[in-house]
């Protein structure tokens, strides 16, 4: 039984940052990103969501791609962050953490078990 997906509208905002966060760790390819997301607790990100997102990041010059010959036959596309992409990630990740901190504090105050 696969883990339940997060609501699409939540993912919409944070997914670019999450994907970039994985790309920043080192050059990687699409399916590996999906697997990494799953490991980090964001399951069921479909190819239909991931690749258009990567494509947008590429168009905004936050990631760059190159082709690598596969072990046998056709090659695969590898994604790596650009300098601009790293800067954008750092800046926005900071801001998101702040945002998450605020929202977490707010939600925690009124959540069962955390009421004081």
């Amino acid at each position, binding site marked *: 039984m696969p883990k339940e997906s997060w609501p699409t509208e939540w993912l919409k905002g944070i997914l670019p940052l999450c994907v970039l966060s994985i790309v920043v760790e080192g050059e990687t*390819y*699409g*399916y590996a990103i*999906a697997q990494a997301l799953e490991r980090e607790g964001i399951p069921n990100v*479909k*190819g*239909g969501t991931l*690749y*258009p997102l*990567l*494509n947008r990041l590429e168009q905004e010059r936050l990631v760059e*791609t*190159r*082709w*690598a*010959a*596969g072990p046998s*036959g*056709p*090659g*695969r*596309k590898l994604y790596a962050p650009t300098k601009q992409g790293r800067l954008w990630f750092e800046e926005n990740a900071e801001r998101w953490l702040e945002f998450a901190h605020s929202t977490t504090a707010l939600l925690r105050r009124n959540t069962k078990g955390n009421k004081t």
Partner: protein
Amino acid sequence: MTDLNERYMARLAFWLRAGGADGARTISILSDVRTHLGDSGESPYEAFGPPRLYAKEFSAGSPWSWSRRAAGVVALAALVTACFSAADDVAYLRTQRPLWWGAPQWAVVATTVVLLLLGWRALMYFTGRPITSLAVDSVDAQREWKLRGARRRNVSLGLFVLVVVASGAWGAQLGHAYVESPKLRVTPYVYSLTGVVANSSDTAVSVRTVIYLNAGGPWTSLNEAALSSGQDPSALQASSLQGFGSLAEALRVAHNHTWSLSQDELSGFTLHYGSYYVLTWSGAIYSGLVNQPPPSQENLVLTYDVAGVGLKTLRIPLSVNSNG
């Protein structure tokens, strides 16, 4: 790569192209799909959704797609209009009737263009091949893309030449048919009977056969019938024409050799393409001199009038037995 994946990628490539994606972009998108499906083993529909919708995710920014498509549609419409006008002219010359029951030209052209575009799309959709299935890298893929482009151009050019040659041949054939037609024809079945006319040296001739027009065309009517070696003007001449919808029916009637003729119905008789006429004719060969035997080879010559073309003739060979 399974068949399903190949088909999916072919359709995705089709919709990406339809959305205005250029070669490099199409290759790049397909490459991701291919490796993803290979890695995950997922079904393409599950991972990416329907190809048309997935292609939409990438369709932003295709600056020349609409103008190019519009130019293509205009060119196609012009071609169809030209073909339609030519066909309509030929049809009118041949049958004095407009094509397509006189439907407005724009409606016929629009319908044809839409049908052609849909047909072309369906052809592309169902016969498309993905382009990155064997590409090793982007350079390789670009090369394959160019190769495919060249192949597609060659195929299109070949088809175009074929259409031009075929329509030229068709037009020439129609033109020829118009100039030559309509022609009156006679079936190989010609029944003729000869006999001596009482108190005269004339030879009586009776003929029964089936005649028909080989093509539709201008108003055609029969003018007269005469024996080629001259006939006795004082002898009784009578004829009848009976039209049938099928050749078989007409021949069946023609094989019946009992008839009676009282008047000459032939002159001015209007002939219609598609009808088969049982022609019954009787007259007499004028011998003039008592001792002159009638010629053994005799023709019944039908003269007919094609409006705008002029008089034409049909010779029906008869076998005349000299028994006088």
